[in-house]
C-alpha cells in the first residue's frame, strides 16, 4: 500500500480566551448561507457558543457527526463545583436536542472547515480576534484504502440522516424522480 500525504485541519480552542462575542457563530452562519453571506442565523451555525453567562462558562463547540440515537450510558462532569452532562460539550447532531440541526428542516449540521474558502482560515477563526479559536494544518500519511473508506462513511452518513428523517419510501421516490430528471 502506497502512503499518501493528507492535510489535517485543526482548530484549537482556548476556553480561557473566549470573550463570549459569538462572532464565530455569526460568521459561520453567514458563510454557509445561500447565497453566501445573505442571511445570518446562529441557529444554523456549525459552531455554537454553549454558554452560561451567570457562571462564567463559555464553550465554543463545532458540529461533528450526525447520530441517529443518543448515547447509551451518560456520564456527568463536575467542573468548578457545577455539574454537566457529557452532552454539554458534545458536537454531535443528536435526537436528544436541537443543537446542530437546521431550525426549519431539522437536517443535521456539520462543520466542513469552510471547505470552499480555499487557502484561507475558516471563518469562525478569522473573526475570533482574541485567539480563542486558532487554525492549524499539518500533514499526515494516509493510504488509499482509508481515504476511500472515509468517502464511503461520509456518503453513508448523509444518506442515513435522510433515511431517519424521511423514511426509506419517500427517499426512494425522490431518488427515482430526481434521477429521471437527470
Amino acid at each position: 500500500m502506497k502512503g499518501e500525504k493528507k492535510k489535517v485541519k485543526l482548530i484549537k480552542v482556548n476556553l480561557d480566551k473566549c470573550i463570549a462575542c459569538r462572532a464565530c457563530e455569526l460568521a459561520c452562519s453567514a458563510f454557509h448561507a445561500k447565497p453566501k453571506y445573505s442571511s445570518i442565523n446562529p441557529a444554523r451555525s456549525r459552531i455554537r457558543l454553549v454558554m452560561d453567562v451567570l457562571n462564567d462558562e463559555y464553550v465554543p463547540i463545532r458540529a461533528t457527526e450526525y447520530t441517529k440515537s443518543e448515547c447509551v450510558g451518560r456520564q456527568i462532569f463536575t467542573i468548578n463545583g457545577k455539574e454537566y452532562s457529557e452532552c454539554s460539550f458534545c458536537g454531535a447532531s443528536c435526537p436528544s436536542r436541537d443543537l446542530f440541526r437546521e431550525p426549519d428542516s431539522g437536517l443535521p449540521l456539520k462543520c466542513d472547515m469552510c471547505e470552499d474558502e480555499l487557502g484561507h482560515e475558516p471563518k469562525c477563526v478569522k473573526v475570533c480576534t482574541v485567539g480563542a479559536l486558532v487554525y492549524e494544518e499539518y500533514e499526515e500519511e494516509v493510504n488509499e484504502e482509508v481515504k476511500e473508506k472515509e468517502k464511503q462513511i461520509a456518503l453513508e452518513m448523509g444518506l442515513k440522516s435522510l433515511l431517519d428523517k424521511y423514511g426509506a419510501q419517500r427517499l426512494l421516490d425522490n431518488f427515482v424522480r430526481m434521477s429521471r430528471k437527470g
Partner: protein
Amino acid sequence: MRCAETGYNLEIDLSRGSIERVETDPRLTELHLGGQGTAAKIIWDRVPPETEPFSPDNLIIFSSGLLNCTPVPGANRCIVNTISPQTNLFVNSMLGGYFGTEMKYAGYDRIIIRGKSPNLVYLWINNDKVEIRDASHLQGKGAMETQGILQAELDASAQVAAIGLAGENRVYGASIEHASSAAARMAGVVMGDKRLKAIAIRGTKDINVAHPIELWGLCEPKYKSIADDPENGDPMRLDPSNDAWHMENFAWGNARERRRGYFTEDVYKNDVTTTDKARLRWVGCYNCPKMCKQMLELEDGRKFFTKCFNRLIYMMAAYVEDFSFSYEMLARTTQYGMDGFATPQLLAFAVELYEAGVLTNEDLPDFPADNAERFFYLLDITVRREGFVGDALADGVYWAARKIGRGAEKYDHNTTKKVEQVPLKLGKVNFPYYLMYATGEKMSITQIEGSYPQAPEPDLEKRKKLVEGWEAAPERFKKWFLEWEPRVDPSIEESVNITDWNEMMHYVDDSIGTCAWLSSFRGQFGCRPAYHMYNLPEFISYASGFELDTDKLWKIAARNRTLVRAINNRRGLRRIDEAPPADHWKIREHEKEQAYLDGYYAFKGWTNEGIPTKETLNKLGLDYVSEDFIQRGILTSDGGEIREG
C-alpha cells in the same frame, strides 16, 4: 423581503393579556432607521401628553437596532424607551449583551408593551410562540438570579432581561439587567409598574441583508481593526491612568469634592490586586471584538459584571477607600436592579442630609456610623421603599429632596431635568458642554457628548497630527480644532455645530444599534471612532438596501432628535428647564450662556422657548407634529418665530 429588519413588531397588552404580531411599514424605517427613532414615532403617536407615566396607557418599547444581527461588528444595542415618572419626559436607555439580537432572531424588531398586569408576570418569547406567564415564583428575586432561573426553566439559550426588587417596588432609579449589561436611566420603574418581571427570548430565525458580499467585505476586516485599535472600546476597562483620572477629577461624596493626588501607589495597588483577584474574565457584547466588561467574583461566590466607571463611583460616593466596597455594592445593586449612575449619587445625598441634621436618627433608626454600612442600610430601605425616608429616596434625588423638605432641596445640587448627573464639578464654563447639558434629552452627558474633543490641544503639531486622519469629522470642524487655542471659548457658531454633531452621532447609534464605544462617545478621545457619519451610510445601505448618504443620514438623525424634543415639548419641556446644575462650573457667565442657548435654538430652528418651529418640523417631514403643536397652542398659528441669537 425585508433586509436588516424583520418587519414585525410584537405588541403586548398586559391588561388584556393580548399578544399580536404586527407587520410594520418599511417606509417608517427609511424615515427613522428603526431603534429609538421608530420608537419615538410610536410614542409620539400613541402616548399623548395626558397619559401619566404610571398609566396603563404608557408604553415601554424594547427596540433592536437596525444593524443588529447583520455582520456589522459592535451593532447589538437594544434601546428601551418609555415615559419616566421621575421626569414625565421621554426615556432613553439601552442594553448591550445579547438581548436585542436574540429579539431579532426571534422575528421582532421591537416589543411594544402597554397595559398593566394584575399580577407579576414574565414574557416568554420563543420565536412565534409568545406567552404571558405567571411570575409569582420570581417575586423578590434578584435581577441576575431571575435570568438564571428562567434559563433553567425555559431554555439554556434564552436571553433574559429582568428587573430586581427595585423595579418591582417602582423605585425610579431601577435598572433592567441582562447578562453583562443594564438599561439604566429610569427604564426599570415602568417595567415594574406594569408588573412585568422579565422578558425571556429565544430566536432561531434568519436575518437577511441586502448586499451580502459587499457588506461582508466591509465588515470582515473591521473585526481585526476594531480589536487592535486602542481608540475604540471602553478606555476605562483596564487602564489605571484612567482610574486615576476619574478618581481625581470626579467629585466624591454628594458630588462635593475633587481629590487631586488621591490615586497614590497604594490606591493603585488596591485597585489592581482587588480586581485581579476577583476577575473571572473579560467579556464583550454580541458580535463585538472588544471586551469592555469584566465578570468579578467575590469570595462567597457572588458574581457580577463591572462596566464603565461604576467600579470607582460607589467608593467615591461613600468615601470608603477600598475597591472591595465598590464590588460589594455592585454585587448587591445588580441583583436589586439599581442604576449604576444614579444610585451612588442618591445614597451620598442621603448621607449628606443625615450629616447636615436634615435627617435624624428618628428618620433613620439605628443608622450606622460606618460609611460602608450606611450605604448598605440606605440601599436596603430604598429598594424596599421602607419608612418615610426609603420611600422618598426611591423617587430619586430631586423628588426625595422635595418630599423630605426641611431644606433638603438645597442638597439636591447635581440634577438636571430632575435627573442625577455624573459628579463633575469644574472651574470655567465649557460652552459646547454647557449646551449639551442644557439641551440634552438623554439625561446623561455620556449619552450626548463624544464626537469632538473636550479640550483644546496646546501642541500645534499634535493638533495637526490629530486632524490628519480625522475621517469622522466634517472639514470645518478640523479647521476649528486646529485653531482652538487653550483658554479660548469656541464661538457660538462652533459650539452649536459641535453640540449638534455630538448629538447626531448618538441619535444614529440609538437607531442602528451600534455601540457608543465604537462611535458616538469615542470620537472625543483620539478622534478615530470605528463608525461615523461618513462610513455608516455604506454599512446601513448594504445591510438594509436603503439608499443613504451622509446628508440623508444626518437628516434622519435630526428628525429623530427633533421628534424626541417634540414629545418632551408636548409634555411641558421649555427653556426654563434647560440648565446644567448651578454649581457645575465654579465661574458662571449667565449672559453669555443665554446667548449660546439662543444661538443653539436658532441653529436648530427652534423658538426661543426651545420649541421647533413649523418650518423646521415640516422640513424634516414632521408636519403632523407642527399641526399638533398649533392645535394645542404650543406653537402660534404662524408656526412660531425664531429669535436670532
